[in-house]
C-alpha cells in the first residue's frame, strides 16, 4: 500500500501568548523567530500511516508545502518517526495560503507522485482550523473521503476505519483510493523517534519540487470563496460577580446566569 501523509508546519501552539502576533498587512500569524512544529493532528495522521506500515507493510511518503528553508525540521522528524521518503513543495507564500489553495497544490503534487492508495491529513491545522483540506483534496482527486478518523487498518484487501462521531464511533469499509482526515485518539498518539533514527533520517530521500513545476489548477483567493478581511486576537477579561442569598438561591441564580450567557 502507498500512503501519502500531508503535514503542515505551524508556529508551536505551546508558545506563551506573548509570542503570538498577527501581521497587520498580511493578516497572518507572525512566524519569524518562532519555533515551527508539525501541526498537532498531522502527527496523528502520520502515526496512523505508520501503524498501517507496521502491521501490514506500506510505503509512507510525507508531503509538505512550505518555504524550503524552514521545512527541514518537520520533514526530518517525520522521517525519523518512520516515513520512507518526503516531497517538499517549495512555496515561499505557503503560510499565506488557505485551505482551497493548499488543496489544489497538494492535489497536483499527489498526481505527480502518482501511485497512492491513501492520503492522510490532520483533521484541522493548529493555526487556521479550517478543516477544509481533506474534503477538498478528495473532491479534486476523485477519491473517497472519510473525516475525523481515529483508527485505520487493512483487512483482507479492504480498508476499515473508525470515525469519531457525536454518539460514539462509526466503523466503515472504505473504497480506495481514499483521503482520510485524522483526529487524535489514544490509539494514535504520535510515537517518539529513536535517537538512531533521528541520525538515520538524513539518509532518507527528500525531493523538492517548485510550485511552478506542478500542474496546479488555476485559483485565487476569490476562487477559493474565502478572503480574510480581519484577524483579531480576543481580549480576555475577567469579572467577579457575587451571588447573594443562601446556597439554594445561589445555585438557582448561578444556573440562570449560565443559561443567560448561553454556557448551559
Amino acid at each position, binding site marked *: 500500500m502507498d500512503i501519502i501523509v500531508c503535514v503542515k508546519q505551524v508556529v508551536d501552539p505551546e508558545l506563551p501568548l506573548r509570542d503570538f502576533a498577527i501581521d497587520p498587512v498580511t493578516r497572518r500569524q507572525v512566524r519569524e523567530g518562532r519555533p515551527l512544529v508539525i501541526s498537532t493532528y498531522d502527527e496523528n495522521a502520520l502515526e496512523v500511516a505508520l501503524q498501517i506500515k507496521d502491521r501490514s507493510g506500506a510505503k509512507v511518503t510525507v508531503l509538505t508545502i512550505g518555504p524550503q528553508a524552514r521545512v527541514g525540521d518537520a520533514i526530518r522528524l517525520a522521517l525519523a518517526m518512520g516515513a520512507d521518503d518526503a516531497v517538499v513543495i517549495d512555496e515561499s507564500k505557503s503560510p499565506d495560503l488557505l485551505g482551497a489553495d493548499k488543496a489544489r497544490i497538494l492535489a497536483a503534487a499527489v498526481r505527480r507522485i502518482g501511485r497512492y492508495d491513501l492520503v492522510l491529513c490532520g483533521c484541522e491545522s493548529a493555526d487556521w482550523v479550517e478543516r477544509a483540506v481533506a474534503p477538498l483534496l478528495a473532491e479534486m482527486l476523485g477519491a473517497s473521503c472519510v473525516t475525523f478518523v481515529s483508527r485505520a487498518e487493512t483487512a483482507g484487501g479492504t480498508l476499515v476505519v473508525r470515525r469519531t462521531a457525536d454518539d460514539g464511533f462509526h466503523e466503515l469499509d472504505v473504497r480506495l483510493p481514499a483521503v482520510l482526515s485524522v483526529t487524535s485518539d489514544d490509539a494514535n498518539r504520535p510515537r*517518539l523517534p529513536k535517537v538512531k533514527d533521528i541520525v538515520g533520517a538524513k539518509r532518507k530521500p527528500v525531493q523538492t519540487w517548485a510550485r511552478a513545476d506542478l500542474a496546479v489548477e488555476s485559483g485565487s483567493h476569490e476562487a477559493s470563496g474565502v478572503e480574510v478581511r480581519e484577524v483579531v486576537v480576543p481580549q480576555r477579561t475577567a469579572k467577579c460577580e457575587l451571588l447573594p442569598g443562601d446556597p439554594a438561591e445561589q445555585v438557582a441564580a448561578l444556573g440562570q446566569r449560565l443559561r443567560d450567557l448561553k454556557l448551559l
Partner: protein
Amino acid sequence: MAVVLTNEHRMIQTVVREFAARELLPIAADLDQHSRFPGEALAKAATLGLMGLMVPEAYGGAGMDTIANVIVQEELARACAGFQTIVTVNNSLVCEPILRYGTEDQKRRYLPDLAQGRRLGCYCLTEPTSGSDAMALRTTATQRGSEWIVSGTKIFVTNGVEADLCVVYARSEDAPGARGISAFLVEKAFPGVRVGKVEKKLGIKCSSTAELVFDGCRVPGGNLLGRRGEGGKIALAALDGGRIGIAAQALGIARACLEEVTAYVQQRQQFGRPIAEFQAVRWALADMATRLEAARLLTHRAAALRAAEQPCTKEAAMAKLAASETAMWAAHKAVQLFGGYGYIQDYPVERYFRDAKITEIYEGTSEIQRLVISRHLVDHH
C-alpha cells in the same frame, strides 16, 4: 572551544523533553516517595536509545556524541534526577569504558545488551575505607590459572541492586596506588557476588545505592578490561565522562528549580501583588538564570572536548563543580522563594533540594574537583 548544537542535537533534545514529559514527570514524585525503581520507564528509554547513547550502531547503540549525551541527561534530570542517575551511570561509567578499553569480544558480548536495556550496568570503585582517596582501594584480584579471583567489598554502588554487569576495580599487582589496579567486567550472576546493605538516601531515591560483596568471585580471564595495572587509568578516564554526566544532571535540577520558581512567583500574591514584582525576587531569578547558563556553557565545552577526543579532565571537573554548586544553590533559593510551600511535598522543589545535594558529592566531591582543577594550575606549570 565553541559549542554549536546541530539540528540533530536540537531534535534529540525535543524528543527527550517530550519523553520526560510523558513518562517521567507524572511519576517522579511517586518514585521518590516510595523509593521505587522505574523499570517500565527505563525500558521505554532504552527503546529510544537512551541507555547506550554513545555506543556505535554496530554495537546496538545510538551512535551519538558526548554533546548529545549532556543534552539528554539534562532533559532527564529536569524531570527526575533519580531516573537520570540510573541512565548516566550505564552510559558514562559502564558503556564508555567498555567502548574505550574493551576487546572486540567484550564489546560484542556486553554493549548491545547494555545499550538496549536488556542488561543494566554499575561501577564499583568506592570502598568503606577509600572514597575520595579512591586509588587506595583494597579489593583484590588474584590470578589463578585462566581466571581471576576477586575479593572485597564495594559500597555506594549506584544501580547495585538491579545491575547485571559490574565494572569492578581491584588490586591485581603488588604496587601501591593507581598502578596496582586492574578493571574487570563481573557479571552479577558469577558465583561469589552478592548484594549487601541497600542504602536509604536523602534524594535520588528511585535509583538504588548498594553494597556489593565479592567473596572469592571467579572471573574469566577474558573479562579483564584493558591491560593489567591499567584499571586506575580506566577508572579516572571514566570519571571524566561521568563528571560531565553529573554536571548535566545538576543543570537539569537547577533548570527545574528556575522553571518552577518562575511560574510560582508570577501567580503567588502577597501584599496585593504577585511576588514577581518585588525586586529581591527578580534578582534571585536573574542570578539563577545566569548561573545556570554559565554552568551549561562549561558543561557543553567539556562535552565538546571529550567528543573531539581532547583532554578534558580539568574542564570536566570545572563543569561538575560549577553545575553541582549551582544546582544546590538554586534549590536553596527555590525552597526559600516558595516559603512554607517549598518545605512540603505538594510542590516539587523540596525534592529538587534533596536531589541536588548528591551532585556535590558523588563522582568526586566538590573538594576533589577543586583538587583536580588546582593540579592543572600548579603542578602542570
